[in-house]
């Protein structure tokens, strides 16, 4: 998979992976937020179970 937004270092600016595909960057952001929210939900679920099991 070619993820490079540049074809030469000459005059390169933003050179990070997928820098030329903003829709993908938005997608990565949304997935990242989703991972955080999901983990917090999992945390709450773990606590509920732990309190019930005591």
């Amino acid at each position, binding site marked *: 998979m070619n993820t490079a937004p540049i074809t030469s270092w000459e005059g*390169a*600016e*933003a*050179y*990070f992976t997928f*820098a030329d595909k*903003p829709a993908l*960057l*938005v997608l990565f*952001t949304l997935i*990242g*937020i989703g991972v*955080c929210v999901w983990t*917090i939900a999992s*945390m*709450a679920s*773990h*606590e509920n179970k*732990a*309190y019930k099991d*005591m």
Partner: protein
Amino acid sequence: MEQSVPELMARLDSLEASLSMATTINSEVFYWWCTALMLAIHAGFLAYEMGASRAKNALASGMKNLIAFAFLIPAFYYIGWWIYLAFPTGFTISDGSEAGLPWSANMGPNLTDNASGIFYAAFTLFAATTASIMSGSVIERIRISGFTILALFLGSVVWVFGASWGWHPDGWLTTEWGLHDVGAAGAVHTIAGFFTLGVLINLGPRIGRFNADGSVNNIDGHNMPMSLIGLMLIVMGFFGFLGGCIIYTGDTWMTIYNTPATLSAFAFNTLMGVAGGMIGAYLVTRDPFWMMSGALIGVISSAPALDLYYPGLAFLISFGGGCIMPKLNDILVGKFKIDDAVGAVAVHGFGGVWGLIMAGVFASGYQNVAGPEISFVGQLSSAVVFMILGFAPGYVLSLILKVVGLLRVTDKAELAGLDKAEVPVSAYPESTVPAAFTNDPASPTPAE
């Protein structure tokens, strides 16, 4: 050997380019190490809060710190940095703030932007500090999930508005009221302290903290030496924090308000502030825990005008803060029944207010680059804004979490110990811990 004018001009251009690049790299290096040093703040909060907890809660207390730190890094990337750039004028979005959106070309490796990443990093550590300020107050009874939600909201939204309004060259508190708060006493400490107060009101005290007649029981942590070392680490980390509060331009230093300053000024007054706060807190408490908290009070008391104070004055202002804040904590606990396990509301919340007001008293008349000169009224009014900005969201969000059952652990889990309830490993599996501090619910602390 004679050189032609074009050759000399070319060499001059080359030298200027090299100098410019050296300045840029020096700036990156400076903030890189400030950020690294700020990690000591979080190592310190970790040790300090685990030590301030009873043995049965030590790891659960530490988990909070670790989780807040881990979650705040992406949260500040996703939204916090953009809020800082977007809202210096209030609630309308400023031009150019799109550079802080997580899908912007500035928010990743970019050969034409040496600043965004390094400032994002420094501000992220400031953000994590706000969450750590709250963290110690709520130990031994808050749910980790509820705490994480509160920490995310405080660290990536609430304090960022305060920073954008008052710790930004174009922030309206400065351009309209002349606020001067170079060390972020208001934007970080007051906001976090008053957010914490709002949370504590809804969270309630630990079981056994107060008797039926209203008298107070001390609930000692299990490892005071660890807490003291942690507090000293926080003080060390504050040299990174305060270093990150000054702008390196290559030929001079500037405050965040674009007024000229020196790092020497910060060095004088930070150290004198630390000493003043420690001595003041010792005088009124004789307690090593409060003496080290006094060091933080001292830093915060002098922080708003670190660039301006005569060091002997910074010492006295911080000494005053060190004398007053432990007594304020006594009032919060004894009179208002606020169970703040580490005194963070007094140390950070009221310590920040004290620092802002003292800058209004002793630094009035200094010119700002944008906005009116520093004044007592401007400092006091800004302090009130920071107090409300911290307290209101902390109270409302914690109330919502309380209603949906995400704020506080069950009584059974609290009595047994949160480590036993939630953490899959043991803090002291092979050591001998006094029976009164074990996970054995049959041997609760005397207060319980």
